[in-house]
C-alpha cells in the first residue's frame, strides 16, 4: 500500500492538504482513468468528505465500503460531478476535470447509478436506456430533423438489455417491473454508453440474496473491460467480487489495499461490528 500525493503527480509545489489517502498502485499497463486528489466537501460545517485521494485503474472491480455517512455517496457525487468539491482536484484520463460539469464527465466516460431507482416513468426500458447512448449527445435540436438518432440508439439499448438478460423486457414500461429488473435497466443505461468507469452506488440494495448473486455476476463480467467502483454494505458480496478495497471512515479514506489484508484489518472488524460482539 503506497500513499498517493494530495496533488496530481505533475502539479508540483501545490500545498499538500493534511491526511494522505491511500490507493491502488497504478502500473504502466493499467493507467489511471479516474482519480481524485485531496478532495474535500462539507455540508453546513459537517465534513462529509475529508481530503480523499484515490486512483482508479482502467479495469477491474473495486469495492468502496464504510458506515452510513462516511461519505461514500458524496465521494461518488464529487467524482461524477453532480457536486463540486470545496477543495482538491479530480482527473479523468489524466486531464484535470475538477471544473467539469456532470454532463461533460458523463460524456467523457464516467457513468453512475444511484441508491434509489431513477427511471423515466411510463416509458419503456428500451427508451430509458436509449436516451443514454446517442452517438451525438450534443446534437442541435433541429439536427434531429434530418438525423434522428433514435433507431440506432434503441438498437444499442436493446443489445445492452440483452447482455444483462432482460432484453425481453425492453418493450415494457419500467413502472410495472420488479425492483431487480429496474436495477438491471439502470445498469444497462449506465453501460450502454461504453463508459470507462462505472460508479455503482449500492446496486444491490433491496435485492434478495439470489438476485444479489445475479447482480454480482453481472458486475464481474462488466469489470472485465472497464473499471467498476461499487459501494455496497453487504461486505461478503463486496469482498467476494472486488479485487481491491477502499474503506471510508468519517469522510476519510481509512483503508486501501487487497481484499485479504482488508479482511484482517481493524476497519473491517469495525464495519463488521466485531468489537461489539
Amino acid at each position, binding site marked *: 500500500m503506497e500513499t498517493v500525493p494530495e496533488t496530481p503527480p505533475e502539479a508540483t509545489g501545490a500545498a499538500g492538504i493534511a491526511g494522505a489517502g491511500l490507493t491502488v498502485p497504478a502500473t504502466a499497463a493499467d493507467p489511471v482513468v479516474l482519480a481524485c486528489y485531496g478532495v474535500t466537501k462539507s455540508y453546513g460545517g459537517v465534513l462529509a468528505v475529508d481530503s480523499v485521494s484515490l486512483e482508479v485503474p482502467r479495469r477491474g472491480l473495486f469495492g468502496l465500503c464504510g458506515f452510513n455517512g462516511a461519505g461514500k455517496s458524496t465521494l461518488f457525487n464529487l467524482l461524477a460531478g453532480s457536486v463540486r468539491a470545496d477543495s482538491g482536484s479530480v482527473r479523468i484520463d489524466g486531464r484535470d476535470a475538477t471544473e467539469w460539469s456532470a454532463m461533460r464527465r458523463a460524456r467523457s466516460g464516467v457513468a453512475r447509478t444511484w441508491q434509489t431507482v431513477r427511471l423515466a416513468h411510463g416509458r419503456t426500458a428500451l427508451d430509458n436506456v436509449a436516451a443514454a447512448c446517442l452517438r451525438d449527445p450534443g446534437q442541435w435540436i433541429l439536427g434531429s430533423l434530418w438525423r434522428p438518432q433514435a433507431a440506432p440508439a434503441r438498437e444499442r439499448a436493446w443489445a445492452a438489455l440483452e447482455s444483462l438478460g432482460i432484453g425481453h423486457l425492453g418493450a415494457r414500461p419500467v413502472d410495472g417491473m420488479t425492483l*431487480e429488473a429496474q436495477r438491471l435497466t439502470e445498469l444497462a443505461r449506465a453501460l450502454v454508453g461504453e463508459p470507462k468507469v462505472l460508479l455503482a452506488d449500492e446496486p444491490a440494495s433491496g435485492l434478495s440474496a439470489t438476485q444479489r448473486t445475479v447482480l454480482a455476476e453481472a458486475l464481474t463480467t462488466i469489470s472485465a473491460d472497464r473499471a467498476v467502483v461499487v459501494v455496497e454494505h453487504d461486505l461478503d458480496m463486496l469482498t467476494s467480487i472486488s479485487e481491491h478495497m477502499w474503506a471510508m471512515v468519517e469522510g476519510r479514506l481509512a483503508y486501501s489495499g487487497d481484499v485479504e489484508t482488508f479482511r484482517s484489518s481493524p476497519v473491517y472488524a469495525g464495519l463488521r461490528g466485531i468489537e461489539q460482539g
Partner: protein
Amino acid sequence: MSEPAATDRGTIESSAATGPAGPAAAAASPAGSPGAAAAHQVRRHDPVPLAAAVGITIIGGLVLAAMNGSYLGLTVTTGVGYAVVTTGMVLQLGYSRQLAFSQSVFMGVGAYGTGVLETKYGFNSAESLLAVIALATVVSLLIGAVVTRAPGLALALATLLLPLFIYQLATYSSWLGSFSGIDGVLPFWSGPSYESTLVRSGIISVLLLGLAAGLVLRVMRSGVGLQLMAMSEDERLGESIGVSLRQRRLEVFVLGSVLAAVGGAVLASAQGLVTPDVLSESAEITLLLMVFVPGRKSVAGAIIGAIVIEYLTTSTSFISTNLGIIEGIILLLILLVEPDGVAGAVARLLGRRTDRWAASLRSWSAARFRERGGRGARGGGNGARDAT
C-alpha cells in the same frame, strides 16, 4: 413500487436465473414483448412526422376550400393560428415539462411584428413572416438565455410575470396603436374576392401548421426527444447520461416561442388586425386550456383542441359569456379525471389493440433474438458493440 412486481415476477426471475437465456424467457413470457422492441429497431425510417405534416395540409386545405370563405372558415383559420402555438406548447410544456407561460407574449411578437412590418415598413406577408421568425428567434434566445437558467418552479413564475408588463408596454405605446392595436395586416395570399383570399390564406396557414406539427413530432420521436424525456423526468439523471440541460432547455424554449410567434402571425393575417388581446392573460389561459384539455402530450389533441375551443368561444354567445366558468370546470375535470387529457383516455383504449399487434410479432422476433442474443451475456458492452 415493489407491489406491481407480482405481475411479472415469473418473467424476470426466470430470465435472471438463467442470465443470458433472454430469448427463452422472452419466448416463454406472455407479457414480455420483444416484438415491439425489435420492430422499433427494424423501422429505421419514421414515417409518422412527414405523414402528419402532409395529412394536416391536405385535409385542412380541403376543409377550408369546402367552407369557401364563410365566417366558419375564418374561425377555423384563426383556430389554425392557435393550433400552431399549441403544437409548440406540446413540445415545451407537455413533453419537456418546461412550464413556461410566455407563449402569449411571443404570439404578440409574431402578431405585432407582422403588423408593424407590413403597415409601417411595407413588407409583404412572406417577408414579414420570415422577419418575424428571425425576430422571435433572437428575442426568445435573449429571454431564454436568462430564464432557462432557473429551475422549474422559478422558470414558471418568471414567465408568469412576462405577459403582465408586455401587455402594459403594448397598451401604453402609441407606436403599437395602444388599445386599438394595428389595422390593415395583409393576408398571406390575396385573391380576387374576399372569400378566395380567405381560402388561399387559410391554405397557407394550414401548410404552416403541417410544418409545425411535423417538426414537433420529428423532434419528440428522435434521440433528442429521448433526452428530453429523460431530463423532464429527472434533471440530475439527465446530466448523468450526458444531456446538456442548459442547451436543451434553451432549445425547447426557443422552439416553442418561435412557433408561438408564427401562430401569432397567422392570427394577425387571418383577422387583418392586431389588438393587445393576443398579449392578455386571458389569451394565455385559453392557450393553456387548448393544450391541457385534449392532452398536453398529444400533437393531434392540441390541434383539434385549439380549433374546437376557438370555434366554441366564438360561435355560441352562451359559451363566450360564461367562458370563465366553463373553462374552469373543464380544466378541473381534466386535471382530476384524466391528467393526460382526452388523448390519454383514447390512447388507453387503443393500448390494448397495440398489445395484440405486438404479440403477433413475438414469435418472429424471438427467432431474431436467438440468432443474435447468444453472445449478449459476455461482458456488458460487447453486446452493444455487436449490435451496431
